[in-house]
């Protein structure tokens, strides 16, 4: 039967699309679970390093690392932007960029210049188009990035801070609330916000090897790296969650489309049969 050939082709093509989006949804769901585990696994390090910092700060009030001292005049800020490498994850990246652009506009209006260190293809492409001042770039980080991949991007900014090229450092990434909600967040890395309200009663001084300054420097560098690492891992969990939701709604939409097309197809088929029947009947009557 020649009727509805186009509609049938259309239905099968939508069905194929639906298969793909379903598969992507399931892949994203399993990747999200793994990304969440990595997120949790990274937490103890940051907590421990924070504890050590608090202790060292209490034991060494005379040595103040530049990272701990807010600068009186802020002329230029550094921002590490964490985005995803791939698209098809709903409004995740654009929400993040909107939040950041708002901040950037505020800074711009108060005469503060901005340096960007971008992580992820999306941010790289996006900010390059707007001629933003990108000083470092990292793309293709994969689903399970190691901290070694991030060292360069972070150190560019740390060096810039030490050379007084920038006066503050922020990290912008998506915060994972749950699989349905992701919040774009802007977090200040430098000056390090001290949380020394914790138990300060024990006052011991340490033996330092090789010496206090070196150990503190290393500690602060590692601390900031671990914060950026956490932001990246969390952003990956967000990416997968957003993709899962986006693909789920795409599959649902494909389902509705198929139902509608099927209805149109059935109606056309029915009409064709009715027409044929009436032709036969009238033909028979004429004989």
């Amino acid at each position, binding site marked *: 039967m020649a009727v509805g050939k186009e509609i049938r082709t259309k239905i099968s093509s939508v069905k194929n699309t639906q298969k793909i989006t379903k598969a992507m949804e399931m892949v994203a769901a399993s990747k999200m679970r793994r990304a969440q585990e*990595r997120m949790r696994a990274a937490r103890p390090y940051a907590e421990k390093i924070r504890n050590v910092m608090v202790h060292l700060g209490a034991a060494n009030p005379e040595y103040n690392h530049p990272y701990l001292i807010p600068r009186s005049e802020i002329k230029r800020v550094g921002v590490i932007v964490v985005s995803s490498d791939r698209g098809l994850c709903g409004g995740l990246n654009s929400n993040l960029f909107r939040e950041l652009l708002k901040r950037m506009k505020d800074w711009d209006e108060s005469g503060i210049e901005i340096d960007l260190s971008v992580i992820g293809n999306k941010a790289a492409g996006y900010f390059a188009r707007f001629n933003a001042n990108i000083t470092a770039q990292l793309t293709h980080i994969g689903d399970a990035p190691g*901290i070694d991949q991030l*060292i*360069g*991007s972070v150190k*560019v900014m740390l*060096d810039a801070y030490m050379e007084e090229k920038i006066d503050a450092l922020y990290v912008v990434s998506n915060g994972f609330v749950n699989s349905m909600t992701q919040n774009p967040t802007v977090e200040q890395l430098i000056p390090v916000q001290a949380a020394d309200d914790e138990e300060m009663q024990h006052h011991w001084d340490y033996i330092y090897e090789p010496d*206090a300054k070196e150990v503190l420097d*290393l500690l602060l560098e590692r601390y900031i790296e671990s914060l950026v*690492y956490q932001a990246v891992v969390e952003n990956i969990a967000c990416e997968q969650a957003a993709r899962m939701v986006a693909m789920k709604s795409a599959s649902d939409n494909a389902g509705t489309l198929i139902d509608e097309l099927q209805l149109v197809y059935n109606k056309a088929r029915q009409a064709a049969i009715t027409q044929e029947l009436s032709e036969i009947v009238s033909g028979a009557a004429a004989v």
Partner: protein
Amino acid sequence: MATIHVDIVSAEHEIFSGEAEMVFAPAQLGEMGIAPGHTPLVTQLGPGEVRVKHVDGTEEGFYVSGGLLEVQPNVITVLSDTAMRAEDLDEAAVLKAKEEAERQLHDREAGMDYATALAENAELAAQLQAIQRLRKRAGRS
């Protein structure tokens, strides 16, 4: 017998947490053993094996490529690096990030290979040592 709580963590995950009789660590100025009640201490670690002597007398080794060790009267914290770290290597990572930003393919990497080789070498040696120790232990039991 006194014991001390040990936490070994890396940026990517928690490696070990538990009680120990003694801990041996590859500090930068030489290997050190830490018994319960040690004076508070902070030191930088080099590549090598952190060994934990459990309460039942068995030993467990964890390979670290560097990091920090903090000793408090009743807690030892090892903040281990999993990545290869050296001043020159970090510098190289910086260069790479910058270069990618500039999208320039100038060959500025000359002189970097030496540093990479050195750090890789030190790490390989330490890794081998750790493996050998593990083998020996497996052979004995």
